């Protein structure tokens, strides 16, 4: 338990050789999945099945199956969308921002976090596409294309910015992920014993030869991608927050929203990454590569961003009081003490109070307590989006139309289905692709880089 923070900790523990690292990461793909895996998969597939039924009901009967109605016209669809997009932000943060900051410890978790980004954005996309009703013609009004009416999308609308931001984010994350996978595909191609797997890996490795003349451009491209992904990841949740902040509804119309949303996204994303990694490192014996130090560092990020989010909550109240605007003041008092006070206090306790335990080093490094706290954070961040969306809408300017929003079973079904999709994809990913970047971890292992006096200097 006594760790000396004055010295840089080894990124890979246990003094593994390069070949051992290789075998350790590649093993889950060569072994047949065991019983536990199938139990887990059948559980997530059942969640996905519930979601599929709910989506089918929504498509057949229309979005009237959902609980949102006047005055709460935006509810579960936007709440879940923002929740999932937020989850995605940890992956790009780890792979891009921590890369630019030269944080070597990111190598052990970057691949997994990036995969979670991609899956989370896929889950997020379900909701805006479903809410368009007939989603097979959604492309007609979501994208600018030449048409006989000579009509174009409204480029001044935050909703169309959202379409561009989220689709760019998905495309860039996918490309970034794939570029990282190319050398690993080549390594797998050269180590696998199966003929079919070899053909598949060859196709995806594009014929990578580990040549240094290629590595040189490759490293450059990785840096360029990281340089672009960094502002991109900040822009995506900023633009998502514009969906609210650009409107003139009290409770939404605040300039603090962009930084507040970005901090919240990183907060929830890291919580989700820690939640999943705790299980993955245990099940696939990756404790030496995804070490307890990694988890501790992520917990520190959760603590820091959690306090940023707490600051934003307080600042919203301060501005409501300081502005002297009675309607703004009503919205916030109603948020904390009105009909949705239960949701507000769940949010505050999960997001602001529980992460404070991470000040204690023992808790930061204790797996069971950590798991509990990050699950609370996940719940709290979902409620944050719920509180922002629903409490601002349910008391509108006309008291006669005040109402109370209650989600329907179909609403819950689609939400459960999105979790099913996410965890099904995560499970499939752990068995089909290396969950840790093989080449990056090798490069930061002890003795992997030339010593200053050894290389004929």
């Amino acid at each position, binding site marked *: 338990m006594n760790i000396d923070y004055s010295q840089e900790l080894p990124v890979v523990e246990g003094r593994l050789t390069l070949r051992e690292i290789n075998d350790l990461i590649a093993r889950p793909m060569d072994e047949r999945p065991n019983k536990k895996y199938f139990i887990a998969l059948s559980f997530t597939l059942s969640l996905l099945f519930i979601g599929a039924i709910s989506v089918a009901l929504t498509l057949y009967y229309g979005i009237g199956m959902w609980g949102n109605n006047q005055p709460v016209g935006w509810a579960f669809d936007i709440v879940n969308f923002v929740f999932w997009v937020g989850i995605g932000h940890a992956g790009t943060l780890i792979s891009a921002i921590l890369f630019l900051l030269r944080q070597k410890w990111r190598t052990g978790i970057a691949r997994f976090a990036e995969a979670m980004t991609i899956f989370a954005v896929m889950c997020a996309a379900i909701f805006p596409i479903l809410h368009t009703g007939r989603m097979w013609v959604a492309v007609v009004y979501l994208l600018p294309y030449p048409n006989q009416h000579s009509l174009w999308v409204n480029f001044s609308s935050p909703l169309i*910015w959202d379409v561009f931001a989220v689709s760019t984010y998905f495309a860039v994350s996918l490309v970034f992920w794939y570029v990282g996978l190319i050398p690993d595909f080549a390594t797998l191609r050269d180590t696998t014993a199966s003929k079919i797997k070899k053909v598949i890996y060859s*196709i995806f490795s594009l014929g990578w030869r580990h*040549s240094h003349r*290629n590595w*040189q451009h*490759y490293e450059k491209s990785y840096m360029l991608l990281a340089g672009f992904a960094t502002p991109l990841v900040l822009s995506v949740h900023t633009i998502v927050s*514009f969906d609210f902040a650009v409107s003139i509804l009290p409770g939404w119309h605040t300039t603090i929203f962009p930084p507040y949303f970005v901090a919240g996204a990183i907060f929830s994303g890291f919580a989700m990454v820690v939640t999943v990694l705790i299980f993955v490192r245990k099940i696939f014996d990756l404790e030496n590569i995804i070490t307890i130090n990694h988890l501790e560092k992520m917990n520190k990020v959760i603590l820091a961003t959690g306090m940023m989010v707490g600051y934003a909550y307080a600042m919203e109240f301060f501005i409501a009081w300081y502005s002297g605007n009675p309607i703004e003041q009503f919205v916030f008092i109603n948020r904390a003490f009105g009909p949705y006070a239960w949701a507000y206090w769940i949010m505050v306790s999960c997001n602001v109070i529980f992460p404070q335990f991470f000040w204690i080093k023992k808790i930061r490094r204790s797996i069971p307590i950590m798991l509990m706290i990050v699950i609370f954070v996940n719940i709290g961040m979902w409620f944050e989006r719920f509180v922002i969306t629903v409490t601002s809408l349910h008391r509108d300017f006309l008291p006669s139309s005040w109402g109370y929003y209650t989600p329907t079973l179909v609403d819950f079904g689609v939400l459960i289905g999105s979790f099913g999709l996410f965890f099904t994809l995560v499970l499939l990913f752990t068995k089909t692709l290396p969950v840790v970047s093989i080449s990056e971890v090798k490069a930061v292992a002890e003795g992997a880089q030339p010593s200053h006096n050894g290389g004929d200097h």
Partner: protein
Amino acid sequence: MEQNKKVFGIAALYDSPNAIIKAAKTVTDKGYKNFDVHSPYPVHGMDKAMKLPPSKLGFVTLAFGLSGAAIALLFMYWTMTIDYPMIIGGKPFFSLPAFIPVTFELTVLLATLSTVIGMVTFFFYFPNNSHPIHDTNYMKSVSIDKFGLCIEADDEKFNEEEINKLFTDLGAIKIEKIFFPDKLNVKILEPKFIGLLLIVAAFVSVSTYLHLNKVLYLVPFNWMMDQGRLDVQSSSELFGDKFGMRNPVKGTVARGFMPYEYQGVNEPTSPLSNPYLPTKENLSLGEKKYNSFCSPCHGNLGDGDSRLRGQFPLPPSLHSSKSRDWLDGNLYHVIVNGQNVMPSYSSQLSREERWAIVNYIRVLQRAKNASEADIQEIKKEPVTNVSE
């Protein structure tokens, strides 16, 4: 058998990153050009050891990033100001701040995609799974934990013995000769391949047909008509009389309605007093309403000269001493209540409009019976510049 094959190059394996840096440095210094270093991960300092010029990949990124920004801005400019200009939120057609997000996203999208596609195709010449180095034992080692250096046969200074000696001196753990593989004989007209093509063609045609002819014409859901509310004239089981349409509760008063206490009374003795002053706005309202509702019978100036050419009995003049001596409240009472053949106007005129008409009638009466003082007052008024 190996003798018949063409040699691609000679490759050596090394055990440590220090050894491969030293080997690369020596080979570069000896003047070899066509050689390559292979390592499972990028080894630091190798660019310097191989004397590689800096990567030019950044220029691709720059060019496509700038074009992304330009395409986005020009496209939005064209659609929003030229092709279909529309005022949105009272902002100018070309409102730059609103165009920044999309411009930024398109810049990032084009820059990153072009970087990766450019790198893979123009810098690596990928995909290339038929390179001679694939599937050799050498490749299988450098893929995992060894560091390799391969000098190719088309180098000017290529000499097998010299290179073997050089590699051994540099501490190679294994030296391997790499040959070009046998030419692969791939038949295009193979049944499996043709079958795959046919399946793809069938799938694409069927899905395109279904999309264009069926899915796009699906009837949108039409259960919106089927709602729980009561339609006009429909019956309801909720009420005893089965009527869906209900009368307002007894004693219900409409918003803005003020009950009139002399309804149906003839010439009330103490009528209401006029709450409105004859301001300019009030009088112009009165004039407008008088001309619309009163003048057809009472005449434009209140003389009782109807425009109706005898279709309706003529009313008495408003300039009689009776009506001039009446209180405002009496005139108001007639408008609300009606008198003789004149009907009530309470449903057509609001309270304010009725009082405005009363004020306007007072103006007409005073104009018809102007005193000497009134005429002096008018003569004092400055002459306007309105020409006749």
